[in-house]
């Protein structure tokens, strides 16, 4: 009776964790739908809907992450897919106002992940690999703009959706190239953390990702100024922009160092509970950076925006590398990280706009291909120039594909600054980022496994 498998047989054929994860997802979704139906008969409380949505995202995101893990993908991909599926773009159980209301939590989570990224960066392990780091960064910084700008110019006559006119096209290509260099340190650190990867390749990947993400801020500033010069008659290249951005980065680093030393002091003198301290610290860094920027602007008319992610990242590096409790610090971070990853990447998935992908898919595919080729080619050249072992040369390119929040912010900035042609660039870029956000973690995970630096899951310890 092979052909007549009933539901029971099907469920038995699925392994334990997969079966129960599916049951929990179905149960939570059913309850959410019942709750929404009942909401029609009572005066519901809006803040509670946000709490309920957050819990739903945590449960469904985590279980989808487990399913992704069973399929050989990183859990992170599962969190993003779960967010995407339940979010406003697809099923819509998590409505857009709930996703919007969870925004402050998203900021908090990204600061926390930056803290984790800093904590994961062990400078001692990078000794002997500085040449690789500089070479990878150099290779990518040269190859991506060349490939992206060249590719756009070659494809412009046949691919619809790109701005018309030589100078506008060049401006758009330069801006797209700068954004293509951006990647997602959050996704990188989450994949490293979840796959429990340790070793020189992992540390090099992390260092390159972090350095590139900082460098992109400068490059994007330059690209925007250059684009302005091209499309605005009489405008000149504004070199002062680098000074302003450099000051912001410098100030954020200084503040991060201060915060890092304060954490070391707090842990050493007051014997504080690290997980609680870290969660609160992420909150404080996020708010403190904004408050200081606001005070500078309103009291002294100084437009310096402290970057909370950079502050947290530096603080993490300081605590990990300049204190004796660096390992305890990382362990504490890793202990509270899983729910934060689920929330952050689940929300990222829920915020993805698939409409852009439908409207300009040819251009989106072109941009994804150009970026991937540029990054892979640049990394290969960089790794070859640094005389890294052959395996690294082939793997390096796959580690930098993911994109997330920063790239989305930069894309939105293009649309805001250049309303005439900006939206035609930012709309397909949003779709490119969405695809890279889904694919990137899986590619990084594969590269880390191939490097042989991954270990069994810490969560099971």
């Amino acid at each position, binding site marked *: 009776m092979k052909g007549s498998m009933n539901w029971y047989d099907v469920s038995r054929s699925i392994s*334990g*964790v997969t079966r*129960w*994860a599916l*049951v*929990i997802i179905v*149960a*939570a979704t059913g*309850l959410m739908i019942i*709750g929404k139906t*009942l*909401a*029609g*008969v*009572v*005066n*519901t*409380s809006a*803040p*509670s*809907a*946000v*709490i*309920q*949505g*957050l*819990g*739903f*995202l*945590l*449960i469904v*995101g*985590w*279980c989808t992450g*487990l399913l992704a893990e069973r399929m050989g993908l990183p859990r992170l991909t599962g969190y993003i897919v779960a967010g995407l599926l339940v979010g406003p773009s697809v099923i819509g159980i998590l409505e857009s106002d709930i996703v919007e209301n969870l925004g*402050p*939590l998203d900021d908090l989570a990204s600061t926390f992940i930056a803290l984790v990224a800093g904590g994961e960066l062990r400078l001692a392990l990078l000794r002997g690999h500085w040449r690789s780091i500089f070479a990878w960064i150099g290779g990518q910084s040269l190859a991506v703009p060349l490939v992206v700008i060249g590719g756009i110019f070659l494809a412009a006559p046949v691919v619809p959706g790109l701005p018309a006119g030589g100078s506008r096209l060049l401006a758009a290509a330069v801006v797209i190239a700068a954004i293509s260099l951006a990647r997602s340190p959050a996704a990188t650190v989450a994949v490293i953390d979840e796959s429990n990867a340790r070793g020189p390749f992992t540390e090099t990947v992390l260092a390159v990702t972090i350095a590139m993400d900082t460098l992109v801020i400068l490059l994007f500033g330059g690209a925007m100024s250059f684009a302005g010069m091209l499309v605005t008659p009489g405008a000149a290249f504004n070199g002062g922009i680098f000074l302003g951005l450099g000051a912001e980065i410098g100030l954020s680093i200084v503040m991060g160092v201060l915060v890092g030393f304060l954490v070391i002091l*707090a842990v050493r003198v*007051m*014997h*504080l*509970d690290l997980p*609680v*301290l870290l969660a*609160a610290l992420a*909150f*404080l860094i996020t*708010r*403190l950076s904004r*408050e200081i920027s606001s*005070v500078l602007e309103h009291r002294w008319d100084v437009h310096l925006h402290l970057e909370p992610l950079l502050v947290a990242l530096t603080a993490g590096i300081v605590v990990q590398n300049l204190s004796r409790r660096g390992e305890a610090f990382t362990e504490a971070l890793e*202990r*509270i990280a*899983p*729910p934060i990853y*689920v929330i952050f990447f689940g929300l990222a998935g829920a915020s993805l706009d698939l409409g852009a992908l439908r409207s300009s898919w040819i251009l989106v595919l072109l941009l994804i291909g150009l970026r991937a080729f540029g990054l892979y080619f640049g990394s290969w050249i960089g790794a070859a120039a640094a005389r890294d072992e052959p395996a690294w040369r082939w793997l390096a390119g796959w580690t930098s594909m993911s994109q997330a929040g920063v790239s989305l912010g930069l894309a939105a900035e293009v649309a805001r600054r250049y309303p005439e042609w900006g939206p035609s660039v930012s709309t397909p870029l949003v779709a490119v980022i969405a695809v890279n956000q889904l694919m990137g973690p899986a590619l990084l995970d594969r590269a880390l496994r191939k490097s042989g630096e991954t270990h069994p899951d*810490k*969560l*099971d*310890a």
Partner: protein
Amino acid sequence: MTTLLSLAALLVLVLATAHRQPWRLPLPAGVRMLLVTRSDFLLIGALLGPFFLRVVDTTTIEILRPFSSLALGFIGLHYGLQLDAQRLRKVPPFYKLGPWVQAAGGAVAVGIPAWFFFREVFGTGREPVVAALVLAAAAACSTGIPLEMLAREEKYRASPLLMMLRHLAEMGELLALVIFGLALCYRHENPVIIGWDAFITLQWIGFSLLLGALFGGVLLLLPRVGRSGGRMMVTGIGALLFFTGSASFLLLSPLFVSLIAGIIVANVPSESRHIARFATRAEPSFVLFLLIVAGAVWQLNAGSGFGIWEIVALAFVLMMLRLIGKTAAGWILAKTTHAAREPPRRFGLGLVAQGSISAALALDYLQSGSTPETRVVVTVVLLAVLATELISPWLILHVLERKPRGTSAPKAGPAESSS
């Protein structure tokens, strides 16, 4: 900058005091009790809140709302997890009836006068009844922490009376949580099932029980996708947020729903230890957090329509009525008991301290909607928590120093086996 400062202040407070050990501090017993039960955080929260120093503003309180819901869920779940039917079945008859009589004594003594009072002041309708029921629930609570503090002293370590009081306190809170859960169900004017307008409160009670049962069911499933501490932390917090959020979303009590879930989990021995480990690990920090938030949202007489002294007087009167109710219930129990060693007739005085569960009830009630009645209830309950904890050590000592009315050695009480 206010929000930032308030958060920094909260952080420093929580961190600096999280690991204190006030058991042996050379302080008056009442003050030491406040530190042990951590009710001083109520005062600190109130001091930082919008009514006094305004360091914690309303925006911060709103930001922290998911965490206070989580705290309520943890408290309910933690309490429910202790209600294992197998253990409770072993309890002697006196111990089974005692907590209910004790809790009912306090609840009736406060609830009925409070209902008359609210009806006079705020008029008829559902809300005065709900407010009176919430006050009755809070009055039913008795915390066992002062008794635990005394049990650390050599002199009282093996006292059977102390063990009995601990059991009565522990179980009495169950009645409080049930009354509270039912009160919030009574609040609903629309039915769960559209078109069926009969037994509306019963429909909501049934729905609360169903939600709690589903929560319990989901909790029982969670270890199947990972039993380690790290995995349980993600799924457990997710489930707590989801179900406490769902309960608040439908204007039900997160405390009551989590309690039901806890009871269900406690009675499935194969899985309960994983969930209990998760709940026990996280609960203390959340109770601390809840007390600070409860203190911060406390605005004495603001929004209640009463003057400060009027509301303090009301709190004092209700506290006295509760004292009488508890003592009377104890007296009835002592008179009717056939235990080998009968307790002293005034042993109800040993159960006066209200504890953090009643503060949690007040906060839960306030979160479900702010009305003049909720404001009165919050102030009365929080004042009572502080006052009863200050006086409770002397009252307990007064009870313990009394000679028992029997001579034969008692059998070990249930608290002994549980602790």
